[in-house]
């Protein structure tokens, strides 16, 4: 059992938790993820490692409530336990001194880019952080990102905070004003449409772009093939070959179709919770 030692509520749908998992905390690196299962009936869901504390033996996760499991998790409190928590999974981000790197985090994707930005800066890169969300209420970790990056740009889609617009606007601007040859790498993490949009922009400028794919997963160890995706015409398993890939090579249409396959069931699962008989009021 894995204890929730701290919970922070960023907004109604975005929450942070520190989970006691010393084995994971000991060896994890930026870019890797964990899989958790809340209880006996639970589904295994992947979440990126947003931060870690090797001394305390804790892993930080930040998640957005989108369905049954994330809502159930969001309803849990400090001191409660999660049944299964396995990691670190996936390959770590490739960190070296590239030069100037644009690190783009969209929505809940701000969390996973944080450790990558930190590691890149430690490796001597000029890290340009670009974070954005739909609206002010959904923005988090501006302070942490400011500390992790060399410079930080913030956007909201609706202009309720900072600059109005999208991360892609900032990428364009920087590529135009500073010159594309002065940008070594772009890393973009967030919802699929956001990553795809970033890739469309960076393709124009010929900027190498790494994305972190959120395919559906079951085991996360290369055993089931549920997470397969076509990259450069070849089938890859996101959980062991990734989760990071060259965004210009990813078959986004396939990824998004595969991600939608269980939508009906996900809806049923979410509705079921509200009729549960245990008296918990739907939190389960």
């Amino acid at each position, binding site marked *: 059992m894995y204890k929730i030692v701290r919970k922070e509520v960023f907004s109604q749908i975005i929450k942070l938790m520190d989970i006691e998992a010393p084995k994971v905390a000991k060896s994890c690196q930026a870019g890797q993820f964990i899989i958790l299962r809340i209880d006996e009936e639970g589904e295994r869901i992947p979440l990126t490692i947003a931060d870690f504390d090797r001394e305390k033996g804790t892993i930080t996760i930040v998640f957005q409530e989108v369905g049954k499991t994330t809502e159930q998790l969001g309803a849990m409190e400090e001191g409660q336990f999660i049944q299964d928590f396995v990691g670190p999974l996936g390959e770590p981000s490739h960190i070296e001194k590239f030069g100037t790197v644009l690190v783009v985090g969209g929505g809940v994707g701000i969390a996973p880019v944080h450790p990558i930005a930190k590691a890149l800066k430690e490796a001597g890169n000029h890290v340009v952080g670009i974070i954005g969300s739909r609206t002010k209420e959904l923005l988090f970790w501006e302070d942490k990102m400011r500390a992790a990056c060399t410079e930080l740009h913030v956007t909201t889609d609706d202009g309720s905070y900072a600059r109005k617009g999208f991360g892609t606007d900032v990428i364009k601007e920087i590529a135009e004003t500073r010159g594309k040859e002065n940008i070594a790498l772009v890393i973009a993490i967030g919802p699929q449409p956001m990553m795809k949009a970033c890739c469309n922009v960076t393709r124009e400028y010929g900027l190498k772009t790494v994305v972190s794919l959120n395919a559906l997963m079951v085991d996360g160890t290369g*055993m089931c093939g549920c997470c397969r995706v076509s990259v450069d015409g070849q089938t890859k398993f996101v959980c062991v070959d990734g989760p990071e890939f060259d965004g210009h090579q990813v078959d986004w249409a396939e990824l998004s179709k595969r991600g939608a396959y269980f939508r009906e069931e996900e809806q049923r699962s979410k509705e079921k919770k509200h009729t549960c008989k245990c008296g918990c009021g739907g939190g389960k």
Partner: protein
Amino acid sequence: MTDTPKQKKQIVPNKAPMPAQDPAVRAKNFSEVATGYTRETAVAEAQRCLQCKKEPCRQGCPVEVDIPSFLKMAAEGDFAGAIAKIKEKNALPAVCGRVCPQENQCEKYCTLGKKHEPVGIGRVERFCADLELETGVKLPEVAPPTGIKVAVVGSGPAGLTCASDLAKLGYKVTVFEALHVAGGVLMYGIPEFRLPKAVVQAEVQNLKKLGVDIDVNSVVGKFSTVDELMEAGFDAVFIGTGAGLPYFMKIPGENLCGVYSANEFLTRTNLMKAYKFPDYDTPIKIGAKVAVLGGGNVAMDAARTALRLGAEESWIVYRRSDKELPARHEEVEHAHEEGVKFALLTSPTRINGDDSGVVKSMECLKYELGEPDASGRRSPVAIKGSEYIMEVDTVVVAIGQGPNPLVPRTTKGLEINKKGNIVASVETGATSKPGVYAGGDVVTGAATVIMAMGAGKIGARSIHEYLQSKKA
């Protein structure tokens, strides 16, 4: 039967039939198909044994269970004695009694089988084991603690057997398992209706009672490498990580929605209990018509599972003819009885999808059998112009599995063959790396439960010798 022992024993020609759920009923539920012998039938079946001096049956068993002795005890109603005898060699009798391919192993060599049906060795073995599980298991003796730590990677039959034998010798064993439960394929692959998960977990609990620690949620190669485990104080390591990497056909359309590997299909159903969705959260989606590609045990399990999940039609699509089906005869028969259909001498060349990327049909080619190939099987040859379209909603690819590369990739100095299997001695399980032993599917490629257990036993014996000689 007469009372005079000298007189020749009257032969009962046929095996006592295994009671089973009616095919029409069972094809719709996940309860165990074969319901097991009663005490009376078990005694009667054991009495069929001729007690052959040469014990041919025993040579057919990969772990050499003392079959004549346990059958003799069972015939006398001494089931406690019988199970103790079995357990001298076989740590998981309730599992083996159910899933061993007995017709190719112990029962194949049974003298009775020459003219009649062989003794139902597996069935009696299963009865003895189930009875013990029901009435409480007597734990074997454990040697005094040696204070030496051994790590076992993977909790399939190879790892569990190795851990059990080492624990009995007084070693402090920790089993590291990637998934959230122990058991390997016994938990995630073989369906509930052939091997109830409660039976597997009962065996795992017994192992824990011997003092073995089982660390689930522990992916070796990720939280720690084999080398790091050894630095952390494990004096020897046994690798039994199985053959869990699913192969695909590499035909167009294989990444469409509704195309599952057999591993995903079975894992969702068995390990994650998708058949109880939405009481369990993990879903599985199944169309009206399912095609399972392949003809082995895994394919039969998938095809039978598909029916239970509500498919109207479940098809086995296999390149060769029914004679070449690699699955156990009994499994093929059960599949037929339950209504699984067979498209033999057929292989898909492409899978087609609709606008939302969901499977809707397969393009297939018809085959005929040509000359025997290296394996002695007649190889299939495509018939020109035989293309046709098979409408399907779900495709399960069950054409085999390879070893998971996670441990080989992260372990320094571990020799691997071309297929990615760990190279280990058949006699000792020793790998190219001192102190590291391996066995089971990760060495042999996909094989059987009892073979994996045999390898686990050998590994334990060698690790014991290695640690003794190191101490000396």
